[in-house]
């Protein structure tokens, strides 16, 4: 699947050409894109209709809201983890990530959708104290509506920090667009660029800001995964005490984030003609990350499973009955296949990882795996009879709940909103960072060592 020519793709060395090619992505698309925007907008509105329909017709029955919670967790897991693909290589000073870091930041902005889905869930999520009894949660003696407040705050913070991270990383590009465009685009770019001219002080402040935002984003991400996973699933089930669960959930989020970056990078490369920028090197590195993420998934899953399987206490057995061999048995099998077995067996081959399409197909498998896993965890958790919440362990395993029309509308609307937001953002922010490609060209050059071909990569402090 790989050819030697693929590795020889390199961004143009002329900064002017780089600038023109990358700015053009903000105006590419034409009529096809306009039609797509209309269609996605319509579907997103249908998603809101689904939420409202569910809220007005089923708000008194908590057991019917599992799919909504699962959709929230799925969007969180597939989009919010994406900026980590830019953050981690930044810390390691890895040059390969520069062409795709903007894509990762753009996907991170989609967290706004989670806030929208969270609003109706706030109504339905039970308070900590019901009929005078306080249920098990991470909030212990906190006020009654603690999960609602902190979870929403977490999601809002994540969306804001994601936006701030994107803005920080795109600031120099706004300046470039300001200097190379006319009309409304120039006005918007001028407003966003806030006088950036590329002085030494501005660059060092920018780098520091990106570093701080990235670190803050990482901690916020882990915090939000911790809150959402525990408050929206573990706390709903009596006796479910699983210390590794928040980390496993976050790991699934990282896996989903890597997958979504691969998918968007593939689409951008194909439809914007960016073969010289997003090359085999990016997919090869991302393929390895994807492979590692699927191994981490099975590791975290098995660590929890083996403890419950060995323990055989009433609550251990209830966990197995609820989440493995009970109402979601087939979902568990699908989750195992798509989160681990298929991506692992696909990406273990060098030829697959060392190609453009190989990691793309692997990413699609992984995204489906994340979906099945979120459904497996959230739907049964919400379908537990609320009257049992104060029991020592779960004694009545609920039957399988299937999605209704509102759930399907919300799901379709959520996915459409993801793509809609990405397209809208891409009208203002280039998909590939112009200044990052300039830096890429500055720091990496194809050279010859005696007779060997290679790349000389600079590693400034």
């Amino acid at each position: 699947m790989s050819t030697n020519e693929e590795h020889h793709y390199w961004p143009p060395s002329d900064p002017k050409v780089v600038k023109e090619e990358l700015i053009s992505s903000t105006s590419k698309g034409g009529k096809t894109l306009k039609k797509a925007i209309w269609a996605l907008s319509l579907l997103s509105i249908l998603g809101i209709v689904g939420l409202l329909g569910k809220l007005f017709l089923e708000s008194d029955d908590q057991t019917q809201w599992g799919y909504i919670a699962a959709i929230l967790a799925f969007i969180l897991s597939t989009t919010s983890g994406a900026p980590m693909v830019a953050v981690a290589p930044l810390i390691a000073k890895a040059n390969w990530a520069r062409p795709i870091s903007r894509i990762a930041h753009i996907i991170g902005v989609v967290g706004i959708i989670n806030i929208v889905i969270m609003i109706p869930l706030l109504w339905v999520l039970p308070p900590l104290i019901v009929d005078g009894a306080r249920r098990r949660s991470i909030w212990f003696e906190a006020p009654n509506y603690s999960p609602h407040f902190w979870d929403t705050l977490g999601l809002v913070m994540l969306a804001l920090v994601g936006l701030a991270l994107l803005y920080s990383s795109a600031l120099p590009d706004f300046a470039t667009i300001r200097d190379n465009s006319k009309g409304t685009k120039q006005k918007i770019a001028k407003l966003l660029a806030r006088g950036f001219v590329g002085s030494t002080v501005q660059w060092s402040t920018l780098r520091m800001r990106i570093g701080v935002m990235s670190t803050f984003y990482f901690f916020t991400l882990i915090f939000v995964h911790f809150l959402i996973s525990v408050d929206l699933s573990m706390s709903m089930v009596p006796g479910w005490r699983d210390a590794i669960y928040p980390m496993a959930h976050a790991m699934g989020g990282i896996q989903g984030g890597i997958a979504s970056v691969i998918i968007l990078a593939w689409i951008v490369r194909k439809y914007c003609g960016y073969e010289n920028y997003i090359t085999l090197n990016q997919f090869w590195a991302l393929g390895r990350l994807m492979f590692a993420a699927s191994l981490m998934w099975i590791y975290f899953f098995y660590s929890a499973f083996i403890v419950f399987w060995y323990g055989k206490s009433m609550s251990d057995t209830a966990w197995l009955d609820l989440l493995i061999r009970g109402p979601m048995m087939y979902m568990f099998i699908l989750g195992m296949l798509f989160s681990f077995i298929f991506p692992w067996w696909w990406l273990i081959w060098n030829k697959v990882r060392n190609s453009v399409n190989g990691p793309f197909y692997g990413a699609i498998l992984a995204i489906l795996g994340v979906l099945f896993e979120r459904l497996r965890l959230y739907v049964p958790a919400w379908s537990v009879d609320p009257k049992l919440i104060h029991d020592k362990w779960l004694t009545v395993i609920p039957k399988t709940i299937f999605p209704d029309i509102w759930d399907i509308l919300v799901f379709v609307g959520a996915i459409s909103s993801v793509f809609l937001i990405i397209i809208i953002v891409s009208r203002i922010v280039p998909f590939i960072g112009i200044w990052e490609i300039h830096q890429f060209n500055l720091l990496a050059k194809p050279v010859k060592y005696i007779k060997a071909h290679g790349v000389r990569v600079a590693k400034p402090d």
Partner: protein
Amino acid sequence: MQQRNNENRLSQEYTNSVLLNGTLQTPKWWPYLVSILGFFVVVGFVLFGVQIKYGLGVTGLNRPVYWGLYITTFVFWVGISHAGIMISAILRLTQAEWRRPVTRAAEILTIFSLATALVFPLIHAGRTWRIIYWLMPYDVSRGIWPNIRSPLFMDPIAISTYLTGSTLFLFVALLPDLAVLRDRTTGFRKGFYTILALGWRGNPRQWKMQVVGGILLSALMLPIFVSVHSIVSWDFAVTTAVEGWHSTIFAPYFVIGAVHSGVSAVVTMMALMRWGWGWNDFIRPEHFDALARLLTVVATAWLGFTFLELLFAVYGLDAPEIALREMQIFQYPWNMLFLLFLLTGYILPVPMWIFKRIRTNIALMFWSSILVNIGMWLERFLIIVPGLARRTPFVFTWDAYSPSWFEWYVLFWSFCWVTLLMLIFSRIFPLVPLFEQKESEVFSDDIKIGRATVPTIFREEEE
């Protein structure tokens, strides 16, 4: 002496002569230190004999604390062993240049600490020979095969796998250096190195196998490394009988703790290597800087896992579990140990490492790394012993565990043993991989971007 264009470069001859100064010549301090350590080690072996003769009564182990210092130290040494693969494999796969002087020392620390860890269950068992019957896969006269369902059986399988893999990895990476030793020695030593070097000549095929094989073995050893300490953690996590043990987070918690303590041990070792052998050109402040940054990330992740473990221990609102945690955190003497564990494991060292001046100060890095390992040993102690002390519901069986001087000496013996093995290794094989140092001189260069001098690395084109 062969010189290169850049005056700052180290020639291969210089690299050989400096890095082999401990192998081809005996440092002045070496015989004294080895004698002292050897004495302590021999005393330790004598004490093992005493324990076999008089039984486990020489220790402080008794109802209900049946697992004490020996098991704590066993887990501790398994943890230290994780440094080798962390540094050797992960940093090799991520092409981190700063790993080069550290890899061999980290690998042999892994091997010797694993071998030491394997000894501890034998010491702990009292009647050591029974372990052999219990472990060996044969059923003659016993009428039963080993119980593969027991994590206690999975432990030696995993540790042996890791030990074998690490040893083979070390040997493969040693081949080019064995050729250097073959070329620089005479007589019996030359014959010894010639046999081990297997006829290495340094042609492109052999170097390619070093590079490709190194990556392959790194990729294979990484999953083993994760599995070993996870399996050790499952010794505790799978049982519901002891409060505070039955937690799903133990596997990654132990692994990240192992990386924390292991990498800190490597920092300790690197400082001692620099001071002991005068390898100032090769073990430089920037290596400590890079390790400290890695440690900061790992330590913070470890703290997160510690927090989760404690949080979810009390999450279930289970009275015995909450009582145990209250004892651990608020009751004397456990509260002092808990505070000491937090202080030494994170609160003192990590904020120090935020500052570059401290990260590049080798003495401070040395002492902070020792603090970390004190904290990590205490962490294992606090996981294992308090739960056992409160294991049964009968209050009359609750007792404080006081390790005897015997057990403390065995702990001390283990440090002497590992250090002695490493010193003996250093007289036979180089502690810093020579070819990796030379490779870095070939692949790295400095260029000017404007007025700034920037280090660069040459990366080969992929096939």
